[in-house]
């Protein structure tokens, strides 16, 4: 029998006397007897070779902090990184609520002992519904990639068609996820963006769509930060062919930008990380999918959908799973895709964020981001040799800068910015080589005029270095 000489704080019954007493009550002489169903030839029969543990909490903290000290966070530098993960301000109340042990350490729960979780997630769905002007929003899926991939498959199931059009700019990583996910039975047609504007080439789109298309999928703002100004026309083209318009949107833009349903979207999806959730090196993502309240659409969601209902007592709100039978929890492989643990706590957090911001906060924030973005575009555009390829198009949050005329590579520019304590943007020179030596910069409400001016002057300096 394995012998341990320690009592671990996380394992109450590691006290030898307690163990002995429990064994006696069970009626076995040692723990090994309880493992007798595992045959000898499948046993490891040696101790795991793992690093020496830290028995005291202090030593553990010291070890982990030692490792973390090798990181330099985007908060300790001036950062203009975006490309799918955004450094917005996270209000204190967001962290206060998602750190509450009652929420943080609960799981699936039932509507009686975990009423709070159901109500908080129902409210999240409801506030997202107001932001999007739509009646049905899911309990979050893993991330925006998954939300897009699932929204596309939903469109195929709803229409009974298996060809989809992906229109315009989509980041390569998200495209990789989508292509993997639709692989079994969906044909993908891609429509390019116009190189001078970043907009979807509507002419090509019109020539490629046909009656076997389930949907046109596009993003607004897209990966380059440009706003698709022809959304209404694109949705109308989809509808002419009885296909759906599926739009991925950045929810934090919707205080000032019209929600996609207003220009004809049937399914809207995206990532909630911008809404009060830290970046966590990519661990802060959650995906939303929204539709109108049409059973043809609702029955194709794989996710859980929490609904409100009356109880036996007047004045009580009860909550539960809407149309549970569609899920893989209920029906295994006969359910829609699959459902499992995903990103519920981020849903609660995004709800807190929207409640704090209110309509006015979302409007001010959206307008402020657009102003700062425009300011950065115009100022950087003044630097000699630097070009903003989609200058005339309205942007949100992000923009592409081309450095071809400077004679400097993006790599050199980003390295020199780094030497001056600035995290420049995302290098696009490999991901979108047709854009040349281009960098995607991101500006949020966290950047004030001085920050942007510093980026501009430093860029000018390193280019002419």
């Amino acid at each position, binding site marked *: 029998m394995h012998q341990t000489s320690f009592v671990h704080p996380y394992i109450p019954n590691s006290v030898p006397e307690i163990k002995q007493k429990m064994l006696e009550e069970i009626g076995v002489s040692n723990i090994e007897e309880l493992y007798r169903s595992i045959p000898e030839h499948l046993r490891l029969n040696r101790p795991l070779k793992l690093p020496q543990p830290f028995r005291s909490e202090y030593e*553990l903290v010291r070890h982990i902090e030692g490792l973390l000290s090798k990181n330099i966070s985007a908060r300790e530098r001036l950062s203009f990184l975006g490309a799918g993960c955004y450094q917005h301000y996270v209000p204190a109340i967001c962290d206060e609520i998602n750190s509450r042990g009652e929420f943080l350490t609960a799981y699936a729960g039932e509507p009686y002992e975990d009423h709070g979780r159901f109500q908080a997630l129902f409210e999240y769905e409801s506030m997202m519904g107001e932001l999007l002007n739509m009646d049905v929003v899911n309990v979050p899926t893993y991330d925006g990639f998954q939300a897009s991939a699932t929204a596309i498959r939903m469109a195929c199931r709803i229409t009974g068609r298996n060809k989809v059009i992906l229109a315009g700019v989509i980041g390569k990583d998200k495209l990789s996820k989508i292509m993997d996910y639709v692989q079994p039975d969906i044909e993908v047609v891609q429509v390019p963006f116009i190189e001078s504007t970043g907009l979807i080439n509507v002419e090509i789109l019109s020539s490629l769509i046909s009656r076997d298309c389930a949907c046109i999928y596009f993003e607004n703002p897209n990966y380059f930060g440009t706003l698709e100004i022809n959304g209404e026309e694109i949705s109308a083209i989809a509808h002419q062919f009885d296909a759906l318009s599926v739009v991925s949107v950045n929810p934090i833009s919707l205080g000032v930008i019209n929600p996609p349903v207003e220009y004809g979207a049937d399914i809207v999806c995206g990532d909630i990380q911008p809404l009060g959730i830290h970046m966590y090196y990519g661990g802060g993502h959650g995906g939303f999918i929204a539709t109108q309240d049409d059973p043809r659409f609702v029955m194709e969601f794989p996710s859980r959908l929490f609904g409100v209902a009356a109880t036996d007592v007047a004045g009580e709100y009860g909550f539960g799973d809407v149309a549970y039978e569609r899920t893989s929890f209920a029906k295994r492989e006969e359910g829609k895709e699959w459902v499992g643990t995903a990103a519920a706590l981020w849903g609660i957090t995004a709800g807190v964020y929207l409640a704090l911001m209110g309509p006015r906060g979302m409007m001010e924030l959206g307008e402020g981001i657009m102003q700062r973005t425009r300011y950065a575009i115009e100022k950087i555009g003044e630097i000699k040799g630097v070009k903003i390829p989609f200058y005339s198009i309205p942007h949100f949050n992000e923009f592409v800068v081309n450095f071809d005329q400077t004679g400097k590579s993006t790599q050199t520019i980003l390295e020199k910015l780094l030497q001056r304590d600035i995290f420049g943007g995302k290098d696009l020179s490999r991901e979108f080589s047709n854009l040349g030596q281009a960098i995607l910069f991101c500006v949020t409400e966290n950047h004030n005029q001085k920050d942007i001016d510093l980026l501009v002057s430093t860029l000018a300096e390193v280019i002419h270095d």
Partner: protein
Amino acid sequence: MIEVIQPKPKLRRFHQARWDEPIIFELSQPGQRGVIPPAVEEGIKNRVGDVLQTLPKNLRRSIPPQLPELSQIHVLRHYVRLSQENLGVDLNIDVGQGTCTMKYSPKVNDQLSRSTKIQDLHPLQDENSVQGILEIMYRLEEIFKEISGMDRFTLQPGAGSAAIYTNVAMIRAYHAYHGNSQRDEVITTIFSHPSNAACAKTAGYKVITLYPDENGYPDLDALKEAVSERTAALLITNPEDTGIFNPQIDQFVKVVHEAGGLCSYDQANANGILGITRARDAGFDLCHFNLHKTFSTPHGCGGPAAGVCGVTNELAPFLPVPTVEFDGKKYYFDYDRPLSIGKVRPFYGVAQNLLKAYAWIMSLGGDGLREVAEIAVLNNNYLMKKILEIPGVSIPYSLDNPRIEQIRYSWEQLSEDTGVHSEEIGYRAADFGTHYWTSHHPYIVPEPMTLEPTESYSKEDLDEYAAIIKNIVEEAYRDADFIHGAPYNSTVHRIHQESFDDPQSWAVTWRAYKRKSGQTK
């Protein structure tokens, strides 16, 4: 003399918080604000003018989003009240959510994850500025390799089911690469997690489900009949949701391998077998762990979680990109993996949970992990002894082989005797401040209950949980109607569930409820 205070009663006189909290929209007071975004300087405004004017009409929002308007303290109070109407591991003896391994999530790990040096890291930062987190990811992979015996891991999937899907995607890529695209069937078992069947179907496979034999083991003969040149893979959980360890697991692997298929081991819940038996030693090609189950990261009401997939060298080329490598001096990402299935999620995984799992393992070490497993099994068998003393309960399948870390029980007898269903025991359990779960669907075991006590609960905790269940069963035998009316001490009473399945009455948002209840147009 001070008055003697009588001892506490045997069962807690619990009452869940009942704040009668309105829906947040009902708390709205026009004009109130919860937080104010930073103002834009005049220098910027003057330079750019009215940016909203640059938007075409159909892109400019004309009616503000109808979000609630609350002052900060009211947002805080609302959500703190809702949190009080919730039970987490921090509050209850959370042994009632079998298969999910509800264990203690150490607070120190949560605190560490709130460091600005993890919380505020952007995933596209220069590698030199993220050497700490990359080292943690690298070390974590080394640890999982030792725990499972596998050759390589990806830490990218967002949770357990995403990890299952990732494994299926790698299996599909492997067969495509070897020109075996005719392999279009995946075999699983009914007591494996439903996501095995669902992910395989999502990835385009036909699913064959094996049922247990009279001893509760998946049927080896049925497997032999199921395999063929169309078999892509076996996806199997062990121990299964019944808590039974399949001692012939290596035979299952052999049968599938001989037919040319791959084998993926669902080790989402490996809590009872850490340091005892490993995926590789049973011959598996792939496996996965859920860090929010076995490795202690908090469940967060259903995520964020983290899943990790382990593979043999033969499958390693198909892992998602990037992998984390170390050249002796520096940790870095490797994207140059031409056979990779690509991305399964943005960036590299749920980094804060990778950190928490790493910290948890580093507080325990190899011996500690084995102690975790042994105590989880000891607790399970102890709780079983206590539960079996209660009338109306049984355990399906032979008990000759002891259960590992969890048990699926049946209340068939109780239900026949009293008309009380397993779900209703759960409703009543809420009255005692604890959580209870039946099982996944379909209910192969009639009137199921699945308990998994993990290593986190003391003997007294287990005694208390068993006493609660015993009390409820006694109530059921005494007065079944009383149970039919439960819960009594919860936040709310019996919910009118039927409205959730009717498109006329379901309401997934407050706006849908207002419209459907005739309060708005």
